[in-house]
């Protein structure tokens, strides 16, 4: 208890003495961890969006003209089921009324999108799933080239190509983000170590006397280690506040207003992310002080 009080008071005194440097170190820790938090939240949001989209990857939509007769439709359906790459149990017909109902359901919070529609503009359509998502292109080609009554087929669509492009873009973003976070974390470690070096220098006389009277190495080191770790902790706390603010005031608004993108944050993400940020702050602080102690404190 005696020792803890001693370490705490030494740490606090030292932090106060080089306040400006300590604030700079805390700021860089906060920025690096804050960006880490935002990259993780952003990445999670977009990967959820892609996952939502990917559920449709094996899916091909065939939109039929309103002029299609019942016989023509039956012939087209028979053809679709007969395609070897198509899962015959997953060929479903969706009437234009069902399509409109689904649309209304999905945008029920934005009634202005459908309130004023007099005539249903959505077509009748078939939705089918390929047995293997990679055959989507093949199936789209077969339908476009071999189906009966092709003039009744207005469009054949699959989601895969757009998703691939999107994934590539987000991967780039993620890579840049991770490189940036690592670079900033290194700068943060160095800056923490500078503050510790200054603290060691300011107390070199005291350290000499401590060694002389037989203080153990760890007794001498602890206040400096605590100083580094507390800088890391305060930095991570600031970063968490910033990340929380970004989530509440930016991400939640995006999710709410861009519903058609189906953005979302995984539930429980923050419960993992925030402790990781605190841990990151502790690690940055500990590494910074370890580096300074290793170089400048011979015990």
């Amino acid at each position: 208890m005696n020792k803890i009080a001693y370490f705490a008071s030494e740490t606090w005194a030292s932090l106060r003495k080089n306040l400006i440097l300590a604030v700079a170190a805390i700021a860089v820790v906060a920025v690096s961890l804050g960006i880490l938090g935002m990259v993780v939240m952003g990445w999670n949001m977009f990967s959820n969006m892609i996952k939502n989209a990917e559920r449709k990857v094996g899916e091909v939509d065939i939109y039929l003209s309103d002029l299609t007769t019942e016989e023509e439709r039956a012939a087209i359906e028979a053809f679709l089921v007969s395609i070897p790459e198509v899962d015959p149990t997953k060929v479903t017909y969706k009437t234009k009324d069902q399509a409109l109902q689904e649309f209304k359901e999905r945008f029920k919070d934005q009634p202005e999108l459908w309130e004023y529609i007099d005539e249903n503009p959505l077509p009748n359509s078939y939705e089918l799933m390929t047995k293997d998502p990679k055959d989507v292109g093949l199936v789209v080609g077969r339908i476009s080239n071999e189906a009966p009554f092709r003039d009744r087929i207005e469009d054949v669509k699959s989601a895969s190509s757009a998703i691939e492009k999107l994934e590539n873009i987000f991967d780039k973003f993620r890579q840049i983000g991770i490189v940036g976070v690592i670079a900033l974390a290194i700068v943060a470690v160095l800056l923490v170590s500078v503050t510790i070096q200054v603290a060691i220098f300011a107390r070199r006389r005291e350290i000499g006397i401590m060694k002389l009277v037989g203080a153990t190495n760890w007794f001498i080191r602890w206040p400096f280690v605590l100083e580094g770790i507390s800088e890391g902790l305060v930095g991570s706390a600031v970063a968490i506040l910033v990340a929380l603010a970004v989530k509440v005031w930016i991400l939640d608004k995006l999710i709410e207003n861009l519903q058609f993108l189906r953005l979302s944050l995984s539930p429980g993400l923050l419960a993992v992310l925030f402790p990781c940020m605190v841990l990151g702050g502790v690690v940055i602080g500990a590494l910074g002080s370890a580096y300074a102690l290793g170089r400048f404190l011979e015990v």
Partner: protein
Amino acid sequence: MIRMRRVTKIYKGNVYALEDITLDIEKGEFAFLVGPSGSGKSTFIKLLIKEEEPTSGQIYIADTNISQLRKWKVPYLRRKIGCVFQDFKLLPHKTVYQNVAYAMEVTGKSRRLAEQQVPEVLKLVGLGHKLDAFPDELSGGEQQRVAIARAFINRPPILLADEPTGNVDPSLAEGIVRLLERINEAGTTVIMATHDKAIVNTFRKRVIALENGRIIRDQDRGVYGYE
């Protein structure tokens, strides 16, 4: 208490600081280590507190071979050896009391124990009335007494003093050595490096004379012996 066996210390650039030193200092002895500047007195002290390592040879303190001592055990060695230096090495922003209590604090003693023992030891060195003074308010002689109190507070079996009278007014120097003598009489082995001829000749203790890193004379109840 202290045994040196064929101890040689060579600094970088082939500088021989100590050469082939073999000696014994028994428990309870008081020894002066004399010699001109650069004769190896300070190196002798630094080897005993493991601030420097001998180039060859063995050093035993209380039957422990300190050359083989693991690094993490060095602080425990230093707790057995009180040290006093020419420049006092006091902390300027701490009071007399705090400077002495510091030596207890960093070795994990309780605050209550310090409150009992520090005033006692300061009284012993004649500073019982200056507990709250700061070092720069004291004379050189008084500062050295604080340093001696700090070296003695943990009751070490050995006390090393490196030129303790070097920054002390000559008229007060004798008082400092009297104090060391009293500590010695209480059972602590004292080694004092000095080139103060008057002091050595007054006290008539064992004299170990160094020159160019070698022992040239080792004499009980000796005199300084240099002109």
